[in-house]
């Protein structure tokens, strides 16, 4: 089992601080979503993790070792950083073969990952003829080449078609089920909510949250119940007495903030109030995220002009 450990990491470019005293761990066996707006320091952190950028201070270790000290790194860590980085004039197969050779990965793995990524038919085509979605698939194929126990993907669903998005989601989930460590950055909330078990949220290079996704949402967004009844007035009075505040909505619907269906159902049943519809409204990751970033006043006002992704 291989953990990623980031400890007191700092990266400064001149006077800009891209990563600021960042400490977190990524555990195996689950998908960890790495969230934050553009320029929050996600890509910088990933580049430092892969030994490409040098931190100003602090460490980023994989299984207790620096990436640069791994003997055949592709066999331990697979990464997709930028789908555009592969040389456009090479064929997909040649690109992967060159990577495989450096880490003495058998050539058959090249065909296996091409197949897995659905690129077998275009394996002999030049990468510059690929759409962004196909390049993402190739980048993910490259990440899987060495059958690594750690997978790091930077914005993998960027440019993918719906089918590709489902494919990456299922892939990440199955990698985690196999006990691998999976770190996936994104700035798309709904997308992240569909695959992540755990969240690490950055803003301006600092850690804003490191928590299970469910806890993250529940701790920030109060639950809400939506219901329909024939006796709205009676139910409202009843619920007000129990400390809830039902608000009428159009179409005869009521919404109750801060309540769960388990709270409302029994109350209505006890007084024989007919309930036509009763549903829990699940808070979304997006709502929780916006709540978090709104709380970071400095972050919210300064996040726009700050862009150190380059």
């Amino acid at each position, binding site marked *: 089992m291989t953990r990623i450990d980031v400890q007191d990491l700092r990266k400064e470019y001149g006077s800009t601080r891209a990563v600021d005293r960042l400490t977190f761990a990524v555990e195996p066996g689950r998908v960890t979503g790495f969230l934050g707006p553009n320029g929050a320091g996600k890509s910088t952190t990933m*580049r430092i993790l*892969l*030994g*490409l*950028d*040098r931190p100003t201070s602090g460490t980023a270790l994989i299984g207790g070792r620096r*990436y*640069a000290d*791994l*003997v*055949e*790194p*592709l066999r331990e860590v697979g*990464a997709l*950083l*930028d789908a*555009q*980085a*592969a*040389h*456009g*004039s*090479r*064929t997909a197969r*040649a*690109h992967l*073969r*060159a*990577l495989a*050779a*450096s*880490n*003495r990965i058998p050539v058959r793995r090249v065909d296996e990952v091409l197949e897995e990524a659905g690129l077998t038919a275009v394996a002999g085509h030049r990468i510059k003829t690929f759409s962004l979605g196909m390049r993402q698939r190739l980048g993910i194929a*490259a990440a899987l080449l060495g059958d690594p126990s750690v997978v790091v993907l930077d914005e993998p669903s960027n440019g993918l078609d719906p089918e590709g998005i489902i494919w990456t989601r299922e892939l990440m989930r199955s990698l985690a089920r196999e006990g691998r460590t999976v770190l996936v950055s994104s700035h798309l909330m709904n997308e992240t909510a569909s695959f992540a078990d755990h969240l690490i949220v950055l803003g301006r290079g600092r850690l804003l949250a490191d928590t299970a996704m469910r806890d993250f949402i529940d701790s920030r967004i109060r639950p809400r119940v939506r219901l329909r009844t024939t006796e709205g007035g009676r139910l409202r009075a009843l619920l007000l007495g129990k400390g809830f505040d039902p608000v009428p909505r159009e179409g005869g619907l009521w919404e109750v903030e801060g309540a769960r269906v388990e709270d409302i159902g029994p109350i209505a049943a006890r007084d024989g109030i007919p309930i036509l519809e009763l549903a829990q409204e699940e808070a979304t990751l997006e709502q929780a995220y916006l709540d978090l970033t709104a709380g970071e006043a400095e972050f919210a006002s300064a996040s726009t002009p700050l862009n150190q992704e380059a």
Partner: protein
Amino acid sequence: MSFPAALHTEWIKIRSLRSLVGSLLAVPLAMAGLSLLICGTLGRPVPDSTDFDPVLFSYYGLSFGQLAAIVFGVIAMAGEYKNAGIRISLAAVPNRTLFYAAKLAVVGGAVLVVGLVASLISFLGGQALMDRGFGIGIADPGALRAVIGCAFYLALISLLAAGVAAVLRSVTGSLSVLVPLVLIISFVVGDVSQGGGAADFLPDRAGQRILLQHPSGALGPWSGMAVLVAWTALAVGAGWWALRRRDA
């Protein structure tokens, strides 16, 4: 991380890019082609001239061959930096010294091989095509030295180019430094056989001393080659320093 594995990767990278295969093959094609053409048509001393050097004469096409070698070295190295592709390469081979050494070994080795072919064809073919009586054999003084020296000259020039490219990280930027340094200045200053002055210590002029049958002046064939080695070491060293120090 093993050096043979890194070499294998660099070799796959070169042979899988048309621009690299093309510029590599252009070394013998351009150089030998032009050399043979000139030897066949103009291969005789100019009357009243005493400085006809039959060995140097069969390397008339060298300027074109070395241009191809420069382009090859630059594309092989600077091509890595296109769209930050270097990140993929360094993620696979995080030991930057190993990556750099493998890249240079493959670049220099490939040019050495095609350079030797180009050199042999230029010399043997050129001498055979010259006017009867002026052509010499490979056993004649300075001939074998020139044939082998030319291959090393081309390999060193391609490494010099790759070193500059590792510093500048751009194909156009590197060529705009190298073409004036190696090609234009010498054309402007004059023929390599007319020795004299600081221009002798330019990388191409110093390195080409080895092509003269009877070199005279400050630099001999081997000391000239040593000057080129020094230039190459400087560029390669600067490239190594830049690659190790900078963020990828």
